[in-house]
């Protein structure tokens, strides 16, 4: 039989391309007098065979990773409305500046006299971020949003311990990201989950009855994971503070507020920022991100070590003498390369560009939501920068949200976040971001509407999607049942 498309369609593992004796690069031989290794290292501690890494040529390495890369959807190729992830465009100049010699080649233990440019960049970035969120002090050290959350929860502990009692509980709403309760546990607190009201917001009355002397504070994303602004935040902050607690804002959704309102003004004591969401640094297939934490003055003594300071002569230094600090969270000073990209972004946009960002992110979502809400229901109404639709109306046809998500892939669009937040049945959480054109939003909405039609007319067709992706629906249950998480090359231990 003639094969119309004889191209190989699966990609071998890099290990399967390996042939003994192939080399991908030449490593320098020592140009100093040498001795046999056995004289240098204790024999009993030496390895007999080097680790079985692949043996491939440079050309094969480049072809391999190029080939597998082509199986990825990505922002530079198409729309990526993953709710709560803020998949905005990643400006190319960021990649250029992050690789400047003088930034990319500094050893973290160079004396501070030899890294003044890097420290100035961190200082100025900190000042700009503090202004954007309306806070007094900041640490740039946390390597990701979740690590920023951990810092935040440990700041609760440090603050209350200094008041004489670390307290026992932290309150979060039932709409919270999974990282919030996981973080609360890591910080040694009990989680109290508060049911959201019918508007999808935190209810001050319910909060009041949950507050008490054993409550360290509240973690409240704003806008929340439904995209709704917590309009009672002033009252909530008053109640929490009266009970001696602290207010923490998960900054996952800060993109909606940039230049519009500031967490510090809203009554929050602590906020973490995701530079990989709000400040355009790339998501990298799952990091690296950065999760700076900004606080009000009364929490400044507890921030992680070291704190960046500015000396009288205009120079910058790292201050390690902070006896009340929670300590270090990163082996060095955080994801510096990510900080360079965020700094570049803010300098490019300036004050006017930052303001337009929040406005446009919300406008894009309003437009997208208006086009879809006649077909996909919005149990809690439109959100600010993102909206959470429900796919429940397709259940009568036997089609689920998961099927809609998979079918979207055939349209060259990444699926929205699905089945989160947990309080919306068959949730479809879509966040367009400000960098998408109206035309792109139209294409997405038309795809969503077409899929709803397909689901009614031919449910099986939608349930078997996707059709055009590099692989089709994958068996996750099989992967769980019989975990195969590594290749075993020949000669492997």
């Amino acid at each position, binding site marked *: 039989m003639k094969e119309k498309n004889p191209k190989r369609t699966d990609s071998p*593992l890099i290990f399967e391309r390996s042939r003994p004796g192939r080399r991908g690069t030449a490593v*320098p031989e020592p140009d100093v007098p040498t001795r046999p290794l056995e004289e240098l*290292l204790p024999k009993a*501690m030496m*390895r007999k065979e080097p*680790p079985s*890494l*692949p*043996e491939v040529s440079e050309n094969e*390495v480049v072809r391999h990773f*190029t080939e*597998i890369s*082509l*199986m*990825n959807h*990505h*922002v530079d*190729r198409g729309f990526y409305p993953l709710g709560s992830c803020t998949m*905005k465009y990643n*400006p190319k100049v960021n*990649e250029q500046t992050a690789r400047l010699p*003088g*930034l990319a080649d*500094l050893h973290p*233990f160079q*004396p501070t006299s*030899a*890294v003044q440019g890097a420290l100035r960049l961190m200082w100025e970035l900190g000042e700009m971020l503090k*202004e954007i969120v309306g806070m007094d002090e900041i640490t740039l050290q946390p390597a*990701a949003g979740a690590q920023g959350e951990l810092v935040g929860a*440990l700041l609760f502990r*440090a603050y209350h311990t200094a008041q004489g009692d670390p307290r026992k509980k932290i309150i979060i709403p039932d709409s919270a990201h*999974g990282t919030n*309760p*996981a973080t609360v546990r890591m910080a040694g607190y009990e989680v109290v989950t508060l049911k959201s009201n019918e508007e999808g917001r935190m209810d001050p009355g319910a909060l009041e009855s949950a507050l008490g002397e054993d409550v360290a504070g509240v973690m409240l994303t704003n806008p929340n994971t439904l995209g709704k602004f917590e309009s009672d935040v002033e009252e909530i902050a008053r109640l929490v503070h009266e009970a001696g607690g602290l207010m923490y804002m998960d900054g996952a959704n800060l993109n909606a507020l940039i230049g519009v309102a*500031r967490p510090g003004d809203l009554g929050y004591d602590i906020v973490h920022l995701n530079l990989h969401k709000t400040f355009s640094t790339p*998501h990298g*297939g*799952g*990091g*690296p991100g950065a999760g700076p934490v900004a606080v009000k003055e009364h929490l400044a003594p507890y921030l992680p070590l070291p704190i960046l300071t500015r000396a009288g002569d205009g120079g910058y230094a790292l201050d*390690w003498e902070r006896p009340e600090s*929670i*300590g270090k969270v990163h*082996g060095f000073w955080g994801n*510096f390369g*990510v900080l360079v990209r965020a700094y570049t972004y803010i*300098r*490019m946009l*300036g004050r006017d560009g*930052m303001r*337009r960002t929040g406005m446009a992110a*919300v*406008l894009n979502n309003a*437009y997208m939501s208006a086009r879809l809400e006649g077909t996909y229901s919005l149990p809690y109404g439109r959100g600010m920068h993102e909206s959470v639709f429900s796919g429940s109306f397709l259940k009568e046809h036997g089609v689920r949200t998961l099927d809609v998500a998979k079918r979207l892939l055939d349209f060259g669009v*990444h699926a929205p976040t699905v089945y989160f937040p947990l309080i919306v049945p068959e949730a479809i959480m879509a966040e367009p971001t400000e960098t998408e054109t109206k035309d792109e939003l139209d294409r997405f909405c038309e795809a969503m509407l077409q899929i709803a039609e397909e689901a009614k007319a031919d449910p099986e067709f939608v349930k078997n999607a996707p059709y055009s992706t*590099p692989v089709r629906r994958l068996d996750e249950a099989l*992967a769980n049942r019989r*975990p195969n*998480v590594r290749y075993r090359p020949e000669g492997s231990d």
Partner: protein
Amino acid sequence: MSYVPHSDADRQEMLRAAGVSSEEELFADIPDKFRLREPLDLPSALSEWETVRTLGRLANESKHLLCFAGAGYYDHHTPAAVDHLIRRSEFYTAYTPYQAEVSQGTLQSIYEFQSMICELTGLDVANASMYDGASAMAEAALMADSIQRDRQKIVLSITANPHYRQVLDTYNLGLQLPVEIAPRTDGGVTDLERLKELVDDDTSAVIVQSPNFYGAIEDLEAAAGIAHDAGALFIAVVDPVSLALLKSPGACGADIAVAEGQPLGIPLSYGGPVLGLFAARGDYIRSMPGRIVGQTEDVDGRRGFVLTLQTREQHIRREKATSNICTNQGLIALAATIYMATVGKGGLRQVAETSAQVAHYAYDRIVAETDLEPLFPDAPFVREFALQTPGDARQLIEKGADRGILAGVALSRFPHIDVDDGLLVAFTEKRSKDDVDLLLEVLKEA
């Protein structure tokens, strides 16, 4: 500048479709008193050229130094193919592979990464990376505690990187696990006799680093034996380049191995982004933190890869998750994967061997030609060792920096160690005989 693409006509049309007359109306839920009326106090926008010039000036305010510094972070060469490939949009502008059907590039590369880390460590399973070596060690201690539910105590050797110990202390603020510190011998390695005394039936894990903070190779097998005899787990903190020469932690009996992955071709970048390596025995896979990729099949029977065992993770298990980590260091793990593929089996060994040869050559010359003495003359090392200095080594380092040389890392900048003064010096395959000559000129003046 902003990256907002809308024309005025677009904006008007979108507002109309949304049923509002102005953008202001979209923010009606925000109480008026909280609305910013004045623009933020930020600098004005710059053009792209002005931005590049501004960053270029900042870059010029730092010094490029010939690097003999280590302390967990090494100046190895990165083959050109690594940065070329991680700059592909397909990799760096994607996110966590939530939709596996359109993320096979990321997923397959993570599976390959996990496989390579298993090869290096001699263990069965590895995750998709942690933030860095320090947080990987802290998470390993928390994992051991959750596996050994009826045991509390962590025993950590004093020869481990003091910054790692600081991060462990921070991660432990909430749980308040007792941490006891095993002392070292005069020879610069963990005192195994004393370690044995500290490990008891309440010990969940013993943690030893090798090569340790001073560059000395530890007897991991003996330490693992002490841990296991008392029913505790053994966590080895290792160095991925040294593992091309040294017996793997798995072969030494480690239950969990963690490492700073930066030596695998990751740029210095003032300390980040780097990546934590995390591997364990197969029995413990369901207690591991972080993302794990598994192989499976699609409906047509073709091989494919998915995020697996997700019931460990925060988005499913919430407060019962093994960790709060989600986003990790994906692109850096990819860079390490490409690095390991490019240098390959023979190349990684050559990197380690050249580094070791240059380090030993320099050691001999320092002992012969300068007044500096090694801190631990009997300790075997791979590519880093500690020198005694007359007083704080920071002055020596400042002097070296004036001449373009980063002569090492001053021990005086670290807490939690029992050495006041001294200098850690490290060598990689990039350092030549001429470079060693330059270092000696600085050290002779100490």
